[in-house]
């Protein structure tokens, strides 16, 4: 086939496509713009265009792109007819891209937009969508710090009575009188879990008392790092109380890191050792009730506490006392009576007050038809 014939065929096909497109009144996508996606690491570019009228006959869009000096390539496959944006996450950082949006009809006729201006993906150092969250965090942290240092002045801080923590001494006393052990279960959380750290600090306080009473304290662990930290903490508590001789490292041991094997192991300890008091503090999942019900069946006094709100009903049903959510984090302050810790509790209360005020204000404004507070909160990602 000669070169002239090839050119003629291409010309005819082009004329036919353009003719079909225009005969159907198909307009190219309008207001096509490519921008660097905001608040990302520079790995994507967002392409936007205006929505086509419903009777335009467009069945979908294709996105074409090219780097300066290279050919066009299609990205993302066929987009549905109603699309007006596409995020290209397959770009090379530092390269400038030019985009074309191609509208496709049901008869496969196509029409292309003009090329966008070249755009590069650049990473942002600060996520602008998180500004309200950032300021909220700063304000809340400032409130806690203010109260922490204000508490050092010796002001008396009122803390409401938490029955679960009031019962700690009762549970330990009971175990001592009965000559039985105390079982402390830290849950399945790892050492980077804040609830596990909170649980470990409660354990430190419990260990101080067991050191005084010479009551055996059993701590089966499911995480090796938690095991080592807990051993150090309990040892430290016994040393602080002047009873290093009463510390028995063998009572703090690794059981297993498997969820239900751990539950089976803890249940076995409960049945064999029959501890008089059981503490279930930390992060728990489906094994919570298996352990709490076994503890209930042996008649032990049980004090539970978790931040897993799905497990709270199980603990409330099966245990004598339950620390609900934030009470777990308040336990250290409550038990140690340290003014600095108590100050942080007051800071938390300020945070709760602000959230409560925002909820009430938001409801009133929404009911009045003013929705800026809702819009502001929806922007936070």
């Amino acid at each position, binding site marked *: 086939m000669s070169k002239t014939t090839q050119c003629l065929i291409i010309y005819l096909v082009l004329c036919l496509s353009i003719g079909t497109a225009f005969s159907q009144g198909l307009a190219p996508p309008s207001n096509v713009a490519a921008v660097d996606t905001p608040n990302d690491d*520079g790995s994507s570019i967002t392409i936007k265009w205006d929505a086509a009228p419903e009777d335009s006959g467009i069945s979908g869009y294709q996105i074409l792109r090219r780097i300066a000096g290279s050919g066009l390539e299609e990205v993302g496959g066929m987009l549905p007819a109603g699309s007006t944006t596409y995020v290209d996450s397959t770009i090379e950082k530092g390269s400038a891209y030019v985009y074309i949006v191609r509208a496709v009809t049901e008869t496969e006729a196509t029409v292309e937009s003009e090329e966008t201006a070249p755009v590069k993906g650049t990473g942002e150092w*600060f*996520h602008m969508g998180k500004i309200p969250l950032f300021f909220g965090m700063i304000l809340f942290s400032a409130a806690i710090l203010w109260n922490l240092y204000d508490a050092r002045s010796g002001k008396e801080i009122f803390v409401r009575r938490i029955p679960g923590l009031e019962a700690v001494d009762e549970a330990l006393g009971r175990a001592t009188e009965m000559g039985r052990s105390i079982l402390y279960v830290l849950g399945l959380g790892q050492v980077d879990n*804040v609830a596990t750290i909170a649980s470990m600090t409660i354990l430190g306080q419990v260990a101080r008392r067991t050191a005084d009473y010479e009551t055996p304290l059993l701590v089966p662990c499911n*995480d090796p790092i938690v095991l080592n930290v807990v051993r150090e903490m309990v040892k430290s508590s016994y040393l602080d109380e002047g009873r290093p001789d009463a510390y028995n490292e063998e009572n703090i041991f*690794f059981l297993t890191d498997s969820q239900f094997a751990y539950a089976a192991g803890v249940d076995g300890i409960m049945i064999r050792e029959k501890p008089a008091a059981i503490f279930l503090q930390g992060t728990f999942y489906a094994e919570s009730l298996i352990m709490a019900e076994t503890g209930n069946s042996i008649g032990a006094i049980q004090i539970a506490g978790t931040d897993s709100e799905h497990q709270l009903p199980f603990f409330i*049903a099966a245990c004598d006392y339950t620390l609900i*959510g934030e009470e777990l984090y308040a336990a250290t302050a409550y038990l140690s009576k340290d003014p600095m810790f108590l100050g942080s509790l007051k800071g938390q209360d300020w*945070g*709760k007050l602000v959230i409560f005020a925002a909820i009430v204000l938001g409801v009133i404004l929404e009911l009045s038809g003013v929705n800026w507070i809702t819009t502001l909160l929806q922007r936070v990602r």
Partner: protein
Amino acid sequence: MKRQVPLALCFLFGIVMILTQFSPHSYSQGVYREVINWNLIINPFALILAVATLIQTHMTRIQRRTEHWQYSLVVFLGMAVMVLIGIPLGPQNSYVEWLYNNLQVPMDATMFSLLAFFIASAAYRAFRARTFEATLLLITALIVMMGNVPVGDLIWNSVLSWLPMEDGASKVRQWILDIPNLASRRGIILGVSLGVISQSIRIILGIERSYLGGGD
């Protein structure tokens, strides 16, 4: 000194990790991923200590012939089988997979299935209508349970047909879950979140340091 260095590191990494949550830049996200990787590296070393304590615990039980000491032999048998087959053949080997699928999985499932019976016994105690709160709980639980099964709506439509609401059991159940239940759950979540932030600030600033153990 024994405490100052960990406290300084805790402060440094705490602040850096907070800042990475507000910075999407690839450098800050790279730092975040790197620190998470360091965290993963610590685990195998800690696992060695854990296995050592496990062996020590069960060896002591066997030596002292404590009650049920024979089960400690089962622990060693299980450990030996998995180690002798798993280390030379690898975790993807068919024998190791067979042992996992036919021993560990059924045992896990057995423990998990016990939950159904424990839920029944715990619910029996919790729902005994001895106080106003327990009665309220009982009525709510009955409605939610009825709303979860098709026969609940059938009973509602035939027994409470005079009420101007069709399929009421499932509708009331959904209302209970969506409004009072969700509201109380969100209240707990807000409290927990504030507690977590407060505890984290105490840890980052070195005010809460009991997790470091003893020594100065």
